[in-house]
């Protein structure tokens, strides 16, 4: 959960930053954005499969967060709170777009790269062309499989498997019960097991 938080950032507590945001300090909000932008963008991208849409939705989510930060009472972590905004924005957008999950909206031109936490200090080892092709193929299969899930099921499986969030955190972010989260997780996993069996069997 703290992949982008550096040691320098860690000494400024999140709650302090939130309080400064509530006092109208945009610099503090900028700091929070820096901490979470990558994970939030990645999460939205995994939901919508289009870089431009993910960018816009991430921007909308942060703007909404800024506008409503005074209402944040600190009952949950800031991350869970902003995730709720992100999920509302993204799921609403997906519903409006009426994505049926056939993988129709893939952005093949996207240039994604892996986050290497030590990339600033160590030379990055690029994968071989064959390996890169293979990884791209796997990612496409995963994207297509996820696109076949409903927005709610996508949200649950991504928060659980890629973010490592607990049931209660997911429930809070989605505004539903823990039982609903577990039930959605059950069906989402079953579907992905069927669609990706040949992929995960070979890893």
């Amino acid at each position, binding site marked *: 959960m703290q992949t982008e938080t550096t040691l320098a950032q860690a000494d400024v507590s999140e709650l302090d930053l939130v309080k400064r945001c509530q006092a109208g300090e945009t610099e503090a909000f*900028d700091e929070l954005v820096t901490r979470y932008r990558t994970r939030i963008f990645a999460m939205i991208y995994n939901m919508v499969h289009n870089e431009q849409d993910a*960018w816009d939705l991430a921007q909308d989510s942060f*703007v909404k967060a800024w*506008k409503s930060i005074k209402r944040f009472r600190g009952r949950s972590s800031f991350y869970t709170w902003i995730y709720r905004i992100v999920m509302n924005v993204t799921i609403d957008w997906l519903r409006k777009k009426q994505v049926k999950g056939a993988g129709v909206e893939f952005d093949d031109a996207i240039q994604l790269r892996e986050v290497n936490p030590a990339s600033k200090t160590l030379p990055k080892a690029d994968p071989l062309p064959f390996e890169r092709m293979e990884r791209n193929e796997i990612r496409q299969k995963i994207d297509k499989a996820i696109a076949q899930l409903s927005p709610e099921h996508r949200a649950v499986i991504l928060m659980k*498997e*890629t973010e490592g969030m607990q049931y209660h955190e997911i429930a809070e972010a989605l505004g539903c019960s823990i039982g609903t989260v*577990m039930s959605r997780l059950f069906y989402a996993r079953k579907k992905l097991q069927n669609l990706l069996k040949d992929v995960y069997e070979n890893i």
Partner: protein
Amino acid sequence: MKTFEEKWTAWLDGQLTGKELDDFEASLPDKAAAEAEKLEVQKLGTLLKRELGARSFSNEEFFSHQLRERIARETAQARDGAKSTWWTIPRLVWTGATSLALFLICAFVVLHGTKPVEQSEYLTQILNMRVDPAVSPNATISVFETTKQDRVTVIWTEGLQSLPSDYAAK
């Protein structure tokens, strides 16, 4: 009461403990198959984490820059919006009060200009006196008034045999 789906999910994620875990595992018809599926789900989780968890985007600084500009713009717009609203209400009140004052002034002027002519003192007196029908059975009294220049009142009487004494005294 948890459903099967909830218990299964909790079991896969290692969230079942104690008696709940024992009861659930005892209820499984084929524990070996369930364990195999658990392994599959773990592999699926590893795959998703490896492939999707590592995604990023390349223009983080530009993203923040754009966001800062958007927030500044929207905050300024909101402030201007609040300002213009603040000015609109007094302006509306001022306009309303001025309009009302103008209306009252106009109404006062018009009403004064067309003030009905006061009834003649004499006519009032004659009408109030009630001519005695026994004395003057066919008496008619007509009054003509003009206010074009000086006020002139003409009283035309017919068949009046005598004037009321009060009137005569005037």
